[in-house]
């Protein structure tokens, strides 16, 4: 059945409904990843967003248990050019509403040129739909992290060091990256008090990725500010932004963000470039306090991709070292984190 993606600015993109017959409202974003649609669908960082796949053929290789990044999908809507048999049914089961047969390239160029827009998947393209699009609650005004963070602490056993993972909507890939390295991972809610985290006596704290605007997460920022003084800490994506804010930096909303598996990032220390997976609409302002050092820059637009504290054992990256979907070129950052955590413990025991 024909339906339309209608944006707040009145732009209309016709297509064919797939997935559940109603719903589909949120900030419309696009990712250029050519593989990993199931990972994208279930990445909690996409909470509240209608995701457009720039790559036109989606559903080709089916779905698998290994590809989940969370228990289920998180996207608010899914827009593709060509859905391969199976995607429709998958979205129905997952209760996601989608739109297929869309000139997704036209949509991507629209978002690139005018910036991200809110939108709805509607059965008719009229002004009423535009009004509904304009009425979609902006990411900043909604407790997205609260919706995806775990409610209470969860322990995932492991022989190695204990890592407290502040869950702002963590991707399964991050948890696996730690557990593959033998860590005991303790997931704590995003609003856990510093004391509660310290009580776990973690070797290190990892602040996860997650959806929405970091600046509104006052309690988590406070927690990170408190912990960074005492425990080796790593931040990823939203966690990176939270660390920056905790250390006195600022963040801002990007025009259309970075979403894809091909973002080149240069590491300042050795000039090496790695290809990274990214999914973020906010970025860290390069104007940072003197005790914070920028370690990674985006080669395309020179945005801040990584930072570390000059004295404290704390660093963070804007990209996803674990990929999923995308390259694992930066995987060894997890080893750096664990090495740092290890030193931290020894330092503490002295």
């Amino acid at each position: 059945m024909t339906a339309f993606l209608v944006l707040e600015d009145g732009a209309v993109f016709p297509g064919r409904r797939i997935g559940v017959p109603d719903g589909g409202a949120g900030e419309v974003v696009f990712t250029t990843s050519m593989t990993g649609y199931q990972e994208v669908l279930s990445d909690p960082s996409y909470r509240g967003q209608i995701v457009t796949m720039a790559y036109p053929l989606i559903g080709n290789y089916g779905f698998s248990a290994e590809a989940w990044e969370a228990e289920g999908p998180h996207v608010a809507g899914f827009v593709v050019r060509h859905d391969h048999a199976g995607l429709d049914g998958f979205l129905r089961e997952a209760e996601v509403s989608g739109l297929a047969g869309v000139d997704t390239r036209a949509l991507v160029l629209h978002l690139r040129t005018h910036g991200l827009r809110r939108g709805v998947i509607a059965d008719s393209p009229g002004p009423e739909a535009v009004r509904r699009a304009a009425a979609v609650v902006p990411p900043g005004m909604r407790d997205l992290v609260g919706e995806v963070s775990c409610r209470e602490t969860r322990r995932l056993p492991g022989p190695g060091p204990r890592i407290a993972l502040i869950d702002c909507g963590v991707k399964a890939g991050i948890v696996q990256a730690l557990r593959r390295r033998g860590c005991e991972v303790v997931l704590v809610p995003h609003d856990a008090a510093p004391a509660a985290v310290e009580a776990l006596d973690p070797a290190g704290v990892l602040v996860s990725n997650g959806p929405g605007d970091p600046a509104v997460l006052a309690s988590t920022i406070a927690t990170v500010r408190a912990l960074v003084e005492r425990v080796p800490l790593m931040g990823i994506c939203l966690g990176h932004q939270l660390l920056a804010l905790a250390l006195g930096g600022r963040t801002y909303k990007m025009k259309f963000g970075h979403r894809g598996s091909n973002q080149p990032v240069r590491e300042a220390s050795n000039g090496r470039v790695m290809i990274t997976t990214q999914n973020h609409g906010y970025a860290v302002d390069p104007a940072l306090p003197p005790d914070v050092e920028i370690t990674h820059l985006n080669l395309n637009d020179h945005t801040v991709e990584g930072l570390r504290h000059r004295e404290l054992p704390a660093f963070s990256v804007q990209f996803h070292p674990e990929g999923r979907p995308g390259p694992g070129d930066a995987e060894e950052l997890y080893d750096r984190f664990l090495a740092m955590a290890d030193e931290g413990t020894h330092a503490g025991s002295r």
Partner: protein
Amino acid sequence: MPARADLRKVLVIGSGPIVIGQAAEFDYSGTQACRALSEEGIEVVLVNSNPATIMTDVEVADRVYVEPLLPSFLERIIERERPDGLLATLGGQTGLNLALALAEDGVLERFGVELLGTPIEAIRTAEDREKFREAMLRLAQPVPPGQTATTVGACLQAAADIGYPVVVRPAFTLGGTGGGIAYSASELAEIAGVGLQSSPIHQVLIERCVLGWKEIEYEVMRDAAGTAITVCNMENIDPMGVHTGDSIVVAPSQTLDDIDYQRLRTAALRIIAGLGIAGGCNIQFALDPRGRDYYVIEVNPRVSRSSALASKATGYPIARTAAKIAVGLHLDEIRNRVTGATTAAFEPALDYVVAKIPRWPFDKFPEMDRRLGTQMKATGEVMAIGRTLPEALLKALRSLDGPGRGLLWPDAASWSETELDGRIAEPSDLRLFAVAEALRRGRPREAVAARTHIDPYFIGQVEEIVACERALAHGTVSLADAKRLGLPDAAIAAITGEAEDAVRARRQAEGIRPVFKVVDTCAGEFPAQTPYFYSTYETEDEVPAAVRPRVVVLGSGPIRIGQGIEFDYATVHAVKALREAGYEAVIVNNNPETVSTDFDISDRLYFEPLTLEDVLHVVERERPLGVLVQFGGQTAINLAGPLAAAGVRVLGTAVDALDVSEDREKFYDLLRRLDVPCPEGGAVTSVAGARGLVARIGLPVLVRPSYVLGGRGMEVAATEEAAAAAAVKALRAGPGYPALIDRYVAGMELELDAIGDGESVLIPGIMEHVERAGVHSGDSVAVFPGQHVPPSVAERAIEIAALLSRALGVRGFLNVQYVYDGRALYVLEANLRSSRTVPFVSKAVGVPLVQIATRVMLGDALADLGFSGVHRLAAPPRVAVKAPVFSMEKLGRAESAVGPEMKSTGEVMGIDADPGAAMLKALTASGILIRERSVLAALADSDKPQAGEVFAAFARAGLRLFATPATAAALRAAGLPVVDVNPEDPFASHAIGLVVNTPTRGGDSGRDGFRLRRQALARRIPCLTSLDTARALAEVLSLDPERLAVEPLAGRPLQ
């Protein structure tokens, strides 16, 4: 770090003549590399023996040597030029093997030349199958169980351990030469024997056969700082067992989930780093469709056919980047020309899908085995871009320029079930059509997938097309939806029973037309600067408004025998001329290998099929002043009429004049009116008619079907019986069409390329063919300027050309072929387009003929360009000889003897002040290397009379003479010392350096001669099949190749 300051001069090695497995892609990469080096202020010296390339244009490098690609010649060039560095990874396998030889002979060291980019050791490791396996094990990368072997015995032993079937893979070869799959010891013994011979180091790899696994390729780049990226990956629709060059390939991969995609990508990065490659490489994997196991199949440590495809598929210029890396730049220091804003250190994201389909020569060699395997048979390929796979596949299919309409193969419906089953089970050029037919007949997708080992996903995509065909037939799908799926008007017409233009009319009425989108390397994330477009049925069109008046140039499509890289050369030069004349040059072409489809050659590149429908879409979008059809070979010429009929302005010679030259009857009438002699002949529709005609015009005769080109299906018949038989064959070849019979005029064949403007005619000179008429002009050795043409005959030839030019109102090119029988000069044919020989002649005279012709087509008068009246250019200071190069070792059962039907895939040029030296250079460059000072003669009776003087010349040159009994008798009678050999297997008992075998009757695999030619091929012993070629060689054999001078090309700029 910027380009290295210590590299002032760099020598680039080209890949030489076009052969199967090594085609135009290396002209593309080599040209790109030379430009990239010049940008860095480096002086570029180029050597390549192939005159039909853009890279051998004097503008491309600071100095261009067209000399044989042999170590001794390169040594002399190096000695003369003293380059600081050598770039060998852009000249295909030829370049690599030469670099290895130069390194081993200590030449590089002696002259202090540094091998740039990938180090020699990395090349060795990748090419030597044994070293490669060791390296992979070191890097903990899985390779199929296997062993390298250097004797047939060892091969059999290895196979016994591994278990059949096994794959035989020779080292240091290309296009899978000499390889194959063996199911039994006897098969293995045979394949291994050939394989060992075809490997320069007599080494083959015997390997577990993973038939049916997915074949996946990654294109990887790495710089000296260790930054590495994958440009893209590609998935072969035909699984393991069919050479990647013979497989239908899509980019990016379609059936790999992110986990597999990343696992192979990670492996690829580990391998390129582990081998220490600096530049680009191609890595092939086999992936188990039932699990997550994979094997590394091979690494090509250089740019390749696949890297050209990847560059065109993504917009990422791999060769350019590799060249920059070779001179010290890092990926993040190289600008991404597409976005202008980003660098080469990123991985392209596609928002479309690309399909590549090979172009095979089966149409030219009906006797050839159509089945595909590990040894490549394709001469070229087409690429198509679409937003869905059906769209891309259907575009690629019609780019092939074959008899298929969409997925409808002419006689598929008549295939029996068993026939059909065989066609889907056995890979061949028809398999995709067979798969469609099977689905049409209701075979379930899974069944077809199981039978073909093709992933069900791809079968499903074909099913979508078939379903649409069905819906069209039942009228249950809208025209708009059928077009959106990608069906061409021609297929829709075939299904609905309408005429193609009726379908177009309906579309126009309903306003159904495609939009054009941009290939931008980044899936729309950044604004793109590149004018690289493809059509699709979507909502938004991205073609920017043009500023200057535009002219469309039609390219020539895939490389095929009879229509090769020469036409891409012409296309590119036409574009150059257009831009210099202030027009926007718009190219339409579909060949991913070529220079013309490099997005920064033209102002606008439309990567589209060359059919009326697709070209009209471009024309409607661009509204050009007109279209140039004279450069894209027969493909473009054939579109002239239909385009004109559709109201498009065809620039240059009028369409009805073109028609006269294409239509034999009309052309002969014209000749008669001009009273220019042509061989007597006519068209017949029955055997009786044939006998009658033969009786009138006399024997021998030349018989051919009337509708085909490229001299296809031509035969010379010396007896009435043979003529009648040939006529039957010709009639069968083109049911409903007459057979053409001409008197066969024995004599010297001449050819010339001229440019006319209606008034004046520019004649660069006259070519003389070494072989008598009867050997296709494309297969004969040609000398420019002709050395034995009587002045009066030359005058007459020019006079005729001028006559024709004026009579036909030629505005642009005119190519005329003549035969001189000692009394009269006959015209065989005229082509009103840029011919195969235009690049050769342009280089021989050092004048950019195509650019002059383009100016004329745009309305300039030759007089204004400095050529008035009948202007014959002064003979150049050096003589140029063109020699054909064949790929027969790849073509299975095909007849290798030359005849009126063209068979060569490429050509080389020898150029020297001394005609003999030029001849020797050309023949040497074409691969006629005499390793043993001996020659074996086996001649047709008709040749025996002249045999004496030819072989006396061989004897004088110090060659021992061997001959089959009858020929031996003839030579002895001529007073020559000759050893008899047993025709069954002469090579077993004697060391033979050269075979001269002139066939009594070609194509008859039962005869000794045929077997002899095949044996020679298998042993890589040069085999001449025309006594004329033998004579030319014999006369120059006394020269010492080591003594020949090397000289760069000189060019006269166009005033």
